[in-house]
């Protein structure tokens, strides 16, 4: 039933995302792409390169760094910025740095200061009025209702009850001074779509998504990787080499690994399809504040 005129779902998703990226570049004054180095960011960056080819994407990449990302993420980040010909801006919240905020001692405050506050500070510092993010609607319930163009007040707050209607593919990018838009070009992609697209387009991703022997310790039921010597081992605790990989990547002390033998992309996809726990389950962030964790975070300005 697929003839030359019927596009596949991936072709339609790609076309929609490219259309969104181009609309923002045409209508916003100073756009930026938030680049987290994860698989969703990898797809978003690839789509941006396609959207503006043969020009490089006409906006910089912004990495809101917590200093606690995996080493492999920093490596890929720098490589991809170079390959895409885009400027890479790295922002670290100075206050969080000065106060030594870290995921081991400060829990939720770590995410709040490095990520939520760091992001707001970076956007204010550079005066970006539009920021692309790699969030997907299938990730989390409150995201299922968020617009592709999501408006933020001058203080970066989100009001779920006051969202603009979004009809057809007509996006209203107009805003008052100081207000900004977060744009989610891959809103309609699912986790499987992301993986399939990476597979089909041979998009570079962080090797941590593939299984390998890595030093780990078990904490509160989560397998954590000892990525550098900042990891405070308990007395007598010795990292164990396990065959692990990650389904999602963030700060290494907050990101749970899964034991796996999936070392290739098809094997990763296979494992994802046969697995019975959702992607965000490895992340501590959704579990705060009961069922409405993410919704509350977004209202406060989390991406």
């Amino acid at each position: 039933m697929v003839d030359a005129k019927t596009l596949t779902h991936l072709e339609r998703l790609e076309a929609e995302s490219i259309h969104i990226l181009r609309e923002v570049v045409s209508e916003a004054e100073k756009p930026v792409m938030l680049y987290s180095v994860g698989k969703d960011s990898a797809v978003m960056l690839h789509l941006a390169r396609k959207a503006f080819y043969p020009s490089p994407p006409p906006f910089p990449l912004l990495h809101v760094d917590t200093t606690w990302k995996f080493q492999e993420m920093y490596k890929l980040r720098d490589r991809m910025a170079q390959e895409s010909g885009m400027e890479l801006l790295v922002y670290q919240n100075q206050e969080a740095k000065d106060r030594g905020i870290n995921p081991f001692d400060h829990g939720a405050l770590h995410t709040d200061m490095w990520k939520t506050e760091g992001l707001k500070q970076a956007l204010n510092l550079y005066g970006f009025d539009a920021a692309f993010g790699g969030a997907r609607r299938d990730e989390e319930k409150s995201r299922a209702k968020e617009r592709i163009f999501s408006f933020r007040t001058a203080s970066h707050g989100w009001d779920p009850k006051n969202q603009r209607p979004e009809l057809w593919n007509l996006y209203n990018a107009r805003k008052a001074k100081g207000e900004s838009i977060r744009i989610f070009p891959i809103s309609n992609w699912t986790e499987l779509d992301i993986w399939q697209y990476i597979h089909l387009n041979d998009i570079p991703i962080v090797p941590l998504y593939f299984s390998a022997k890595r030093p780990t310790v078990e904490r509160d039921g989560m397998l954590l990787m000892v990525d550098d010597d900042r990891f405070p081992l308990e007395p007598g605790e010795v990292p164990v080499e396990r065959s692990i990989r990650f389904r999602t990547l963030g700060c290494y002390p907050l990101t749970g690994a899964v034991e796996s033998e999936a070392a290739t992309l098809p094997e990763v996809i296979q494992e994802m399809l046969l697995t019975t726990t959702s992607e965000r389950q490895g992340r501590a962030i959704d579990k705060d504040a009961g069922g409405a964790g993410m919704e509350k975070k977004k209202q406060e300005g989390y991406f």
Partner: protein
Amino acid sequence: MSDIITNDSVYQTDSLIAEDIDAYLDVHQHKTMLRFITCGSVDDGKSTLIGRLLYDSKMIFEDQLAALEADSKRVGTQGQEIDFALLVDGLAAEREQGITIDVAYRFFATEKRKFIVADTPGHEQYTRNMVTGASTADLAVILIDARKGILTQTRRHSYLAHLIGIRNIVLAVNKMDLVGYDQAIFDKIVADYTEFAASIGIAAFTPMPISGFKGDNITGPSENTPWYTGPALIEHLETVEVNSAVDADKPFRMPVQWVNRPNLDFRGFSGLIATGTVKPGDAIRVLPSGKTSTISRIVTMDGDLDQAVAGQSVTLCFEDEIDCSRGDVIALADNPPQAADQFEATIVWMADEEMLPSRSYWLKIGTQMVTATIQQPKYQVNVNTMEHLAAKTLDLNAIGVANLSTDKQIVFEAYAQNRTLGGFILIDKISNATVAAGMLHFSLRRAQNVHWQATDVSRDFHAGLKNQKPAVLWFTGLSGAGKSTIANLVEKKLARMNRHTFLLDGDNVRHGLNKDLGFTDADRVENIRRVGEVAKLMTDAGLIVITAFISPFRSERDMVRQMMQPGEFIEVHIDTPLADAEARDVKGLYKKARSGQLKNFTGIDSPYEAPLDPEIRVDTVAMSAEEAADAIVARLIP
């Protein structure tokens, strides 16, 4: 849980994933996509149906299921059973109130297709949400509670789905388990709906008896409804035609989003193809300017394409350097859309603040952004009864028909033909809120009458009737060079060859069309401009136009060249040295000019700028008028 009927075969088969992941990925890679909307309220079991679709397609993971089971016991409405609705009602405020406020998008897939479901609330106060969800849908599932039959909201939802142009409508008579799977009840509802559907213009719909809660006729035929022989819901969703496939068969149109200009050697026009297909070599027209060119390349990062279709985002390059920027529409040269500035439209008002006739709003249509003012509505539609009511304005969720005007012409098509060029949003200029959505019906006659594109019989059709290619043979040269003589001979020769021609002679035109003009430089320019416009109209009519004017200035001849289609302007330089022309002096004008009786005479006290690179140059010293005419005809008709 035990009596839930599922049929896993339509979904991703675990065995294939486990045994041959590459084969599975190949299948997934070739899936198509269908976007649909579910219309109904919580009472109709809408959220339950969507939850069921997600659950059956294994889009729910164990951790979500565990949370769902816990939530079902805490706030669910189904006792100890799993309340699928809780999967779908996302926002905290909604869970507390037990209603779906916004539009939520859900995803699931079967072996054949990926689906995006727009889940929208059913109550009248959420009409705008439903219209929003429906705007991108290929299909609408109208849910009816089998115990209640057709309700006011069924009519409203059907009207809205039809209004937004959804061609595929599924009438899902839900909760059949609660009426004992009684065929008579189903048949009665279908009969009632058939009558109603016809009354609002819905030509066809697909009725099916289902139970979202129990799973009847969702993934496969239910044993409980042996009398029903139609498709199960999923089966139907997997096979209906999607909009993009229909759009591909329409004439080519692509609104330009962005001009891609990385360096001086590359100039591409990026956009999402709204309708039709495009190939290198296709003749295109840029609207509203009307300039034409040919597609040279379809550029993507994965390599140039041989063809692109509706729904694809591409970058197009032209053979010629013609003006084209964001907001323009690239279209098939032979069959372009029109431009106009006054329209009749249906408007759905989406803001708390009511519509203000005569206030200016931003209007965004495709990639065009203009200022628009709306007149007082002709009528408002009662969305429950479809009655037309008098209205002075439109308030939140009101739907009406009104005329509107824009501050400049926009390229458009009727919404029924083209969602991209017919659907628009209105934006408040102060708050920047999206206050309305609209659908253009047609442009008003008075705008259409002044627009050059407003003809159905195209220039190519005119030319085809005459079996010739239109052209302008633009003779230029000094007074007395022999332009009129040779032009006259050329026309006679063409007429003998059954070519349809018209000779515009400089002297003759000055007796009528241009009798108000003198011989100052400004008047000479206007003289040529008018002749150029007349010649252009004649080429639109399919004629071969021959003009004989001194036309001394290069810039005016180039201006006329720009008015014409590429290749249709043929500059013929009748090259006679001034001394020879003056020696002939057929009309005695040189003598008058030399004596000062005639001012601004070309070659004497007004310059003649000879063509630098004419298509044809005739040396009248070297050849006779006959020979010159033969040479010109041979050049035109090889």
